Each structure stands twice: as structure tokens, then as C-alpha cells.
């Protein structure tokens, strides 16, 4: 057995800091407040579409290549484009150096992220071709998969890939018994539950869920509350994604 499940969630209880003080979180945020987000589209010259995104201390880059020829050839689909999504963490992105290359966690994240985009990308328009989405985590601070999905959406639009909607993604955690939006590292490590969501947004409205995972422990009621909280957060991210794309295109107009 070459690969093993890394016990990355277990932390010493005695190291746990007080995560919520006077109704505020460690970084001063309220429960339903996102971390500061920064996005820029079109930052890579060679890629067909790209986006740099910061979500709190997360720093990620997304690039989209395609539609282009698929290699190896046997992966081609004569009726539609093949979507590939590769989530990768840089070795220096975390406290302790991460061994380069895909581990089991990255393989799983890549799978569920690809599955989030597959139904919204209009694949039928590009038979035999491939659309590759590459996301690189340069610095990780909890919520990297959501940050990457948000960046990938902007990169896909930047690449001009036709889509039925946009994806905006955010997680909700349960920390010291309360639900918090967009958990940072400490809240993810010491929290009781973590639920990453991604939503499909069409015509400015949340239409459905594109990605859904969960670990931890939550009652059914809390889960419903968490979903509502995530929807509000996703709408704010969606507005930022739109602005980022508009900014890129208005810049091009000036030339």
C-alpha cells in the first residue's frame, strides 16, 4: 500500500485556542462574514483563461486551457468535450512541506470539483476536444477547494468557455457550537464540522448545489441553517466574480 490516509484532522485538544470571544472570531470577523477576497482575471499569458484569487490567507491560481485537442487521444469523446480538473498544492503552501504530486485528498477534491463543472459547461459544443482546468494552491489556510472553485469560474469565463451558470463556493463550519461562514485554518482544525458548498448561480440567483461534502458532526437543523448561511456568502462571492470579469473586459476596451 503506497498511499495512506493521513490523519490530518486530529489535533491536540489542549492546544485549542478560544475561537470565539465576545461574539467575534479570532480574526475579528462576525459569524456570517467572509474573509477579504481579492481576484484578478487574465494574469497568465499562455493560458486561455486565468485567475489569481486570495481568500483570507489562501492564495490560489487557476488556469484554463481549451477547448483543445485531447491527449492521450483515446480519452476523446466524439459527442462532447472532456473536462479535466487538477487541484494541486504547492509543497511550500502549508506549515510542513507537502510531498509534491497528487495525494488521495487532492485526487478526491479534483474529482468532486470536476463533477461540479461538468453539468454547467456546454460540453456538447466541442466534440472531441478537451477543456483543462488547473488550479494551484500557493498558500493554504482552510477552504482551498472553495477558493480554487471560485478562481476556476473566473478563469473559465476569461477563457470564453460557454456555461449555463457560474459557480460560487464557500464553506460553513461549526465552531464551539455555532455556525461560522468561510472558516479559516484554526476554525477548520479545531472546529466540530466543516461543510464545503458550491452553488450554481444563474441570472443572479442561486439555482442549485454543484458541490457538497461534509465532515464533522451537525444536527439536521444545523445543516439547513448552514446551507442558508452558505448561500448568502456565495452570493457575495458571485458579485465579486462578476466585478472581476467586468474589470478585465473594460480594461481591454481601452486598448
Amino acid at each position, binding site marked *: 500500500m503506497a498511499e495512506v490516509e493521513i490523519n490530518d484532522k486530529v489535533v491536540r485538544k489542549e492546544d485549542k485556542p478560544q475561537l470565539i470571544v465576545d461574539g467575534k472570531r479570532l480574526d475579528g470577523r462576525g459569524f456570517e462574514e467572509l474573509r477579504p477576497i481579492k481576484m484578478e482575471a487574465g494574469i497568465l499569458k499562455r493560458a486561455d483563461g486565468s485567475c489569481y484569487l486570495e481568500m483570507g490567507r489562501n492564495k490560489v491560481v487557476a488556469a484554463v486551457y481549451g477547448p483543445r485537442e485531447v491527449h492521450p487521444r483515446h480519452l476523446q469523446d466524439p459527442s462532447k468535450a472532456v473536462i479535466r480538473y487538477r487541484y494541486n498544492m504547492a509543497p511550500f503552501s502549508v506549515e510542513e512541506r507537502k510531498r509534491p504530486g497528487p495525494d488521495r485528498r487532492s485526487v478526491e477534491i479534483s474529482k468532486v470539483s470536476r463533477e461540479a463543472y461538468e453539468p454547467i459547461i456546454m460540453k456538447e459544443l466541442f466534440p472531441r476536444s478537451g477543456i483543462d482546468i488547473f488550479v494551484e494552491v500557493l498558500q493554504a489556510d482552510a477552504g482551498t477547494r472553495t477558493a480554487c472553485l471560485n478562481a476556476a469560474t473566473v478563469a473559465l469565463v476569461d477563457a470564453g468557455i460557454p456555461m449555463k451558470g457560474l459557480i460560487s463556493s464557500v464553506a460553513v463550519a461549526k465552531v464551539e457550537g455555532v455556525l461560522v461562514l468561510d472558516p479559516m485554518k484554526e476554525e477548520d482544525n479545531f472546529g466540530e464540522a466543516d461543510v464545503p458548498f458550491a452553488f450554481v448561480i444563474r441570472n443572479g440567483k442561486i439555482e442549485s448545489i454543484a458541490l457538497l461534502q461534509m*465532515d464533522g458532526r451537525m444536527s439536521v437543523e444545523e445543516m439547513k441553517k448552514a446551507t442558508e448561511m452558505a448561500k448568502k456568502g456565495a452570493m457575495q462571492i458571485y458579485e465579486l466574480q462578476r466585478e472581476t470579469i467586468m474589470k478585465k473586459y473594460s480594461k481591454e476596451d481601452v486598448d
Partner: protein
Amino acid sequence: MGEEILMDIKKDYILSKLKDGERIDGRKLDEIRPIDIQTDIIPKAEGSALVKLGNTQVIVGVKMQPGEPFPDAPDRGIIITNAELVPLASPTFEPGPPDESSIELARIVDRGIRESEAVDLSKLCIEEGEKVWIIFIDIHALDDDGNLMDASALAAISALLNTTVPAENFSIGDNFPLPVRDLPVAITSLLADGRYIIDPSRDEMSIGHKLLTITTDKNDNIVAMQKSGSYILKEEKFYELIDVSVRKARELRELLKNI
């Protein structure tokens, strides 16, 4: 090729029955196939279980050995979950390193056990910072007739319930039963045409790989979820599936109480 055409015909049949709220094997939409759990079938393993879920069969074997703890949890045992989709179990499985579906399967089973804190890992410390018990949960699919997910999760917790910590083999005192304190149960639903069916069979999977797995603990809390497959999920459906998963998990948990 022949099989693909058959699959297409079956797919239409399954979908047309589903419109009338029926399934091809006569089950109700939320009915789980008959379950048979046999434990202790591999005496050389510290714990084992064979689960039959209809025609789907999975063996889980648990092996344990002392090893070094993770630096961030010096006084807690370790769980390592691995799944092998061996070619014997399905014409579509190929030999080779674990692909994304076996990794996903192992990780969903692992999350259910880990997050429900089913195993009391604090009781598996041998020497703080030096030596703790490592639990290897190996999922071995034998026959994939659909929903390996729930069968594997059930087999894993059954095998853990059946596990004896082999302390004597390593001269670390007396053997003792593995401290298991919760019964996580995974329920997988297949979505199609605005409806859902619980515990999809292989044939039913031909209508689309649109799955949602929800694992709950003995207090009906949600401990793990995974949306799997290329589809988008309506929020109302999500809530509906939470409720049905809690209800069906209670039924399966009764079976575990007899182990």
C-alpha cells in the same frame, strides 16, 4: 458493445418505471435490498465482516499493529482506510493503483468512522508520543452490483465491532475488544428525473451516476456527506434526502446491534 446496448434498453425501462414510482426489482423507492452481515470470517484478521447488500458483496478486514503516532496527536490511535476495487468484482474494474473512485470510496467510509468518533482512539495509546495502535481498515470489493458505498461502510463498522486488539501478539498486555462507541451508517441515494431511489443497484446506476451519500451517527447527527457525480442538486431535494437518510440509517443500525 453488446452490453452497452442492453444498458441503454434497461435505462429506458428503469426510467419509465420510475415515472410511475416503481423500480425494476419491485422495491419501493426508499427500500434497501436484503442485507446479510457475517462477522469474523477471516480469523487471521483482527476483525472482519462480509456484507451482502442484495448481490453486492464486500469484505472488510481490520488489521492492527503498534506504530508511531502522528506528532499532532501523540496519545491517540490512528485509522487508515483503504479500498481496493479488484478486477474480480466487476468487468469495469481494472488492475493497478487506486483510481479516483476507490480513493473516494475509502475516504467516505473513513470520514464516517472518524467523524462519528466511532472508535475511541484515546484508548489506543500504548506509550504517549512513542507508540499507538494503528487500525488498518481494508475494503475489498467482491461483487459490485451497485452501491458499494453503503455496503463498504456497513462492512467497515461491522468489522470494527468484531475487532480484538491483538496486544498479546506484541507483548503489550492482554488482548481487549476494540472500543467502539458509535454506529455510523451511510445511506446513498441515486437521483433521476426529479425523484430519488435509495440503495441503487448496478442496473439502476445505468440511468446516471448522480449520487448523494449521507452518513449519520446513532443520535441522528450528520457526520459525513458526499455529492458524487456530475449533476446539480436542488436544495429541496437535499433536505428531503437528509430526512430519508436519517430514517433509513436507523433501520440499518438495528442490524448492527446484533453483532
